[in-house]
Every structure is written in C-alpha cells, then in structure tokens.
C-alpha cells in the first residue's frame, strides 16, 4: 500500500504570508500530503482558514497545532482545558520533569517534545515511557537539531535519541519524526527524514511509520474527536431525526 506522508511540525513565520506559502508549496513538492503548522494559542481562526485554502491549492492537508510550554503541571492542565477543542494537535514542550510526567499521562496530549539543545532537559526515561504507553501521547523527534548541530553536540544528541527510541519501542510508545524547521532549506523529503532516523537506530519500517502512519493516525483520531458527531471513542452520531 502506498504511504501518505506527514510533517507535523513546521514553524514558519506566520507574519510573512509569502514564507508560509513557500513552505507549503515546498512540502507538497517534497511529497507530503499533510502538514501541521504551529499557531500561537490566541490565533485568529480566519488566518487558519486562509492558510487552509492555500494548502488546498497545493493539494495539501493542513492541521492546526499548538506548542504548549507550561512551567508547572497545573499550568499544563489549565492550558489543555482551554485549548484542546481549539487545536487539532497539541504538543507539550517538556521543560521540567513534573510537566513531562503530567503530559505523558494526560490523554489530551498528542506529542511530547523535549529540548534537543539542552540534553539535561530530555526527560524521556522508563517512567515517562510507561506513563505515555498508558496514555495517547507520542514521542516527537525533530530533525532540525540533527541538521543544525555538529561535532560533539550532535554525537551526544544521537546517543540520547538512540536510548529514547529504544525505550519508546520497548513500551509501545509511538514515535513521530518531524522536521521542526522554520526555513524551507532545512525541509527534507519523507524518505530522507526516515533515513536520518536510522542514525539513532530506528529500523526502516519504524522510521517510515514515524513519518507516515503514526502522524496520520494522530490527526485522524483528533479530527474524529473534534467532529460534532463524536460522542465517545467508538460511538458517533450517524443520523439525527424523529425516527431515530
């Protein structure tokens, strides 16, 4: 079966419509069928609609994403309550262990993202993976740092990612490989992203799933939940009327 590819982490400068369009067109050219663009929490829905139309012209599906950077677990819970029904994808940038643990066990969180530049803030260990395996959160790995870093810092990051992906696979936590770029020159084809994932020993099938099946299923599931027909997992309204 032919795979459809997704990049769930594009961060263009939303103030520059030209740059956003360039990145959307480049993503389409590179073979992606779905992209997620990070919006600020207080974005205007009209902007997203305009962008969705532009994506349609490029034969691209757009998902609206927010990156939460809470300082405490309480702040995270408040933000989830406020934004869960507004965004299709919620990623949590875990800057403390408490936040990481809360994010891993909360079923409203889609993606767990950790700092690639400060390795002491990568909290994806056995406990985190166990919590995430009971929840719905996936581990998101951005490729931008792998391209931007060099020498010993890239070596240390690769070593960290190798350990984390092994833990994630052992606990059945799904892995999503994203670009995380704000510049179109750093965008790569899906197969190239998967090839880069081989640097931290992610197998070929798992790497391809990380750029296709895993991100696609997150968006599909969330769209179903956000639909007005959704009642509960597995239950949805099929028809309304007097004869029902």
């Amino acid at each position: 079966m032919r795979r459809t590819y997704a990049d769930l982490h594009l961060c263009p400068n939303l103030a520059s419509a030209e740059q956003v369009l360039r990145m959307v067109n480049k993503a389409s050219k590179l073979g992606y069928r779905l992209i997620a663009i990070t919006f600020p929490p207080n974005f205007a829905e009209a902007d997203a609609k305009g962008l969705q139309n532009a994506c349609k012209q490029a034969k691209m599906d757009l998902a609206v994403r927010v990156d939460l950077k809470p300082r405490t677990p309480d702040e995270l819970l408040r933000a989830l309550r406020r934004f869960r029904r507004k965004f299709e994808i919620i990623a949590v940038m875990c800057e403390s262990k408490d936040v990481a643990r809360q994010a891993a066990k909360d079923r409203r969180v889609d993606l767990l993202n950790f700092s690639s530049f400060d390795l002491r803030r990568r909290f994806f260990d056995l406990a985190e993976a166990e919590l995430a395996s009971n929840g719905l959160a996936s581990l998101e790995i951005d490729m931008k740092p792998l391209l931007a870093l060099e020498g010993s810092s890239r070596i240390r990051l690769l070593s960290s990612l190798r350990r984390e992906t092994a833990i994630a696979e052992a606990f059945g936590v799904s892995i999503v490989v994203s670009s995380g770029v704000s510049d179109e020159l750093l965008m790569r084809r899906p197969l190239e992203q998967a090839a880069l994932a081989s640097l931290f020993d992610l197998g070929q099938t798992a790497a391809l799933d990380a750029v296709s099946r895993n991100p696609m299923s997150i968006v599909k599931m969330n769209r179903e939940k956000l639909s007005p027909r959704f009642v509960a997992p597995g239950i949805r309204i099929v028809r309304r009327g007097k004869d029902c």
Partner: protein
Amino acid sequence: MDAVWNAVGKLYGEYGASRTGLSLIDYDVERRFLVARTTHTAVEMVRTALASITRIGNKPVAVHVLAVSGTIKALYKKIKP
C-alpha cells in the same frame, strides 16, 4: 562531490565512507542535478549523508534524492524532464 564525501565522512567515518563505493557519474550545472554511483547496500547511508548537507562553502543548500535506480539507463528514464 567533496561536500558529499565530507558528509559521509562526518556521519560514518572513513571506514563507513569506504563501504559506500561513491563515485561521480554526471553533474549538470544548469539543471542542478548530480548522478552518483554507490553500492546498493549503502544507498540509505548515502541518502542520510545527502540529507545532512546544509551548506556548501558558505552557501546554505539542500540536497534531495530525486531517484534511485539499479542502472544508469533506468535512472535517466526516471528523472527525464
């Protein structure tokens, strides 16, 4: 081609680079593409190395793999404009 060798060398070292069997077949400046040969076992290594190239000299660049093929004839068929 130096940039490709450098990228392979940086990621996989001299031992890894020696296993790729890389060689230049064709380079079209106008159409901005390069055809390189590598052993079939090292295709993913070379793909990874190419994806890791972000600049050549001081110029920011991106290198993408357009097609992979077992023969040069089939490759040109795949990438013909």
